[in-house]
């Protein structure tokens, strides 16, 4: 069967089981958009290519499948660089297809030419510049294989216009061996000696902590984790990237560790004598100042990426492989278990002394942002998906919502990309149309990518957006208040410029506003009753609210600051 490169590209996506792609056409990718008309694949036309990238990420994080974006060359390609970098930091499987100028023009500074494989070489797991139509099926199959296996990540396929226009005889790679990836071996054999060494450490530990990272979700290891945690009675912490990997309602769950983590989660790690890291990477936002991090802890480091071992913290035992398989191996090999009674007494003590705290709500506003998150959560049906932007609101969403299952928390962790929330929520809703999807966004973030609500409205993707409108780049404001003598530099945004309700309405969404507790409950109920169009709520929140607990940057986790109301008796 003779096809054009463009037809072969679309057919290859169909072969990979792709149902939805996010994108925006232009010159170099034009040939690819023609066969799309005849394809079963749904294309979602975004308003900015950054939106396409974050939607693909949201889709991937909600479904566990690769998200796909298609954009044109030059500015189309550079506009999607931020989501690619974001996906790289968070190991999110993406396949990004970019148009490129014809092969004969590459290197001539042709119109809308840019070296996107060069630009993205440090922020992709891999990328390809496809030189002939016949190579396209293999490039696409390899891109999906690379994006979704091993440590997942973004893969970019750059397709010159003449390649998509020329003819090829259709073929499809017969299997992985046919992908021509001699340097890629994602399957790892379990090291029995290392498993035994880990078990030996576990059997003598008195204050262990299961330090659960995003790799646990990527490895779909939640079931194994739950079984292992319950059998061993070990306390669990879930990082910002792992929220939902272990139920927040579970009594063994101490919550999130890190700069804005729960006191008990942070302190348990600090005082632990054995950290079992499950697909976590000892990020500086978790460890605080490294030389004072968990000083007495031995480390069992489980990761699919060997380069993570000893990168930040020396591992006593490194276990290379998929988190799920390794937990099962540990579970099978472990003979002696303990109840860790005195450890639990200590942990329960800390939990009782330093629960998450915030100031009492005041009846007629401004709203406490933490209370808004809790009110939405209380009124949300189980399984609701939350996507966040980046800033204070993100931390409150991570702290005050209870995540019970994988794929319900979608955020930008490693890169901290403002503007992630709205498009990621849209992508998640496309991937999981059966679920309610809330974006919990900041006013600053919202202004970066809000135009994608036009996409949501026109494509019939009814997400709900809660703007925690504190009129500030709040997280930066918090640092300036605490560490720069309250010298506020370029952080004020205004509560009503833009008018978020009118803006929402202009984009075909329902716009609501709440300035006090009564309105807050009413508009949340109203938003929950609307299921055909996107809803945006402008919650007027207190600009002076700060995120606590907080480990000041540059300090060890021992310097954790709890909420002001809890200070004085603090250890």
């Amino acid at each position: 069967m003779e096809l054009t490169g463009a037809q072969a590209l679309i057919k290859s996506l169909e072969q990979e089981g792709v149902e939805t792609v996010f994108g925006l056409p232009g010159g170099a990718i034009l040939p690819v958009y023609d066969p799309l008309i005849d394809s079963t694949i749904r294309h979602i036309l975004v308003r900015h290519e950054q939106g396409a990238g974050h939607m693909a990420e949201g889709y991937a994080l909600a479904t566990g499948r690769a998200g796909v974006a298609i954009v044109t060359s030059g500015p189309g390609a550079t506009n999607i660089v931020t989501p690619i970098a974001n996906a790289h930091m968070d190991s999110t499987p993406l396949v990004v297809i970019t148009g490129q100028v014809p092969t004969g023009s590459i290197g001539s500074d042709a119109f809308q030419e840019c070296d996107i494989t060069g630009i993205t070489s440090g922020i992709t797991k891999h990328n390809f510049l496809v030189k002939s139509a016949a190579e396209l099926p293999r490039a696409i199959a390899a891109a999906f294989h690379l994006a979704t296996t091993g440590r997942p990540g973004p893969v970019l396929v750059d397709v010159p216009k003449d390649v998509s226009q020329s003819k090829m005889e259709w073929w499809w790679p017969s299997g992985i061996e046919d992908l021509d990836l001699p340097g890629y071996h994602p399957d790892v054999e379990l090291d029995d000696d290392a498993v035994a060494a880990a078990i030996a450490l576990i059997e003598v530990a008195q204050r262990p902590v299961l330090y659960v990272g995003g790799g646990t979700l990527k490895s779909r290891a939640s079931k194994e984790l739950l079984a292992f945690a319950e059998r061993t009675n070990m306390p669990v912490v879930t990082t910002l990237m792992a929220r939902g990997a272990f139920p927040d309602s579970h009594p063994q769950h101490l919550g999130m560790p890190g700069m804005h983590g729960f006191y008990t989660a942070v302190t348990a790690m600090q005082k632990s004598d054995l950290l079992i890291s499950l697909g976590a990477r000892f990020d500086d936002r978790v460890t605080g100042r490294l030389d004072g991090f968990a000083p007495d802890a031995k480390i069992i480091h489980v990761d699919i990426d060997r380069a993570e071992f000893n990168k930040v913290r020396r591992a006593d035992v490194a276990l290379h492989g998929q988190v799920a398989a390794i937990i099962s191996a540990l579970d099978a090999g472990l003979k002696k278990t303990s109840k860790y009674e005195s450890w639990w007494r200590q942990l329960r003590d800390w939990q009782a002394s330093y629960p998450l705290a915030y100031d009492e709500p005041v009846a007629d506003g401004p709203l406490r942002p933490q209370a808004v998150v809790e009110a939405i959560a209380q009124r949300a049906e189980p399984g609701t998906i939350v996507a966040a932007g980046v800033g204070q609101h993100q931390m409150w969403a991570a702290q005050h919502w209870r995540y019970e299952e994988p794929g319900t928390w979608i955020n930008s962790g490693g890169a901290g990309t403002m503007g992630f929330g709205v498009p990621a929520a849209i992508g998640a809703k496309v991937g999981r149309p059966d679920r309610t999807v809330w974006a919990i966004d900041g006013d600053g973030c919202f202004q970066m990518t809000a135009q994608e609500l036009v996409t949501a409205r026109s494509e019939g993707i009814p997400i709900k957006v809660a703007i925690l409108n504190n009129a500030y780049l709040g997280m930066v404001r918090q640092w300036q208040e605490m560490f720069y003598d309250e010298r506020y530099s370029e952080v004020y945004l205004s509560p009503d410029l833009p008018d978020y309700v009118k803006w929402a309405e202009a984009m075909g969404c329902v716009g609501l506003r709440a300035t006090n507790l009564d309105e807050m409950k009413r508009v949340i109920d109203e938003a929950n009753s609307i299921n055909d169009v996107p809803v945006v709520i402008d919650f007027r929140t207190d600009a002076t609210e700060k995120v606590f607990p907080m480990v000041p940057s540059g300090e060890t986790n021992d310097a954790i600051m709890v909420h002001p109301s809890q200070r004085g008796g603090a250890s």
Partner: protein
Amino acid sequence: MSPAAEPFVGATSSTPVRHHILSVLVENKAGALSRIAGLFARRGFNIYSLAVAPAERHQRFSRVTIVVDAESAPLEQIVGQLEKLVNVVAISDLAPRNALERELLIATIQVDVNNRRALLNDIESLGASIVDVDAFGLTVMLAGTPGACDELERRLDNYDEVDIHRTGRVALPRLGPRLVD
């Protein structure tokens, strides 16, 4: 030749004290080399020298010999990050004491016919050879240990007009039992 008979083995003035040699087999594909160079730059690993050529009979692969400064990052990190590059097929790392290192130096020295005595002595004593010559100068080459190349370079510094090019080293493991660092 036994290791002891080799002149200038090991660290010399121009080699970082804790260097390590990585012999990296990469797919001969567009961008593969820039990925390696980019990785070193991005992660703050220092490259001391780098030599690339098609590997063995296979046109499919190239051999990149990288001398890394093992002070700038733990070797384990450098190797681990390199391994993740999809185009990298195999890495062997060699501690200098287990490696047989060789490098090529060529140099043109402008020196007239009447003043070549000392230069010719140097060339001979270091085992270099003359590959080109005219009335105004000569071109010499030395294929030898990095140390021998360093020594020749040092001696050539005495001349006013010299153009020296070095290839960066290639290396293979020594035969016989491995020495432990």
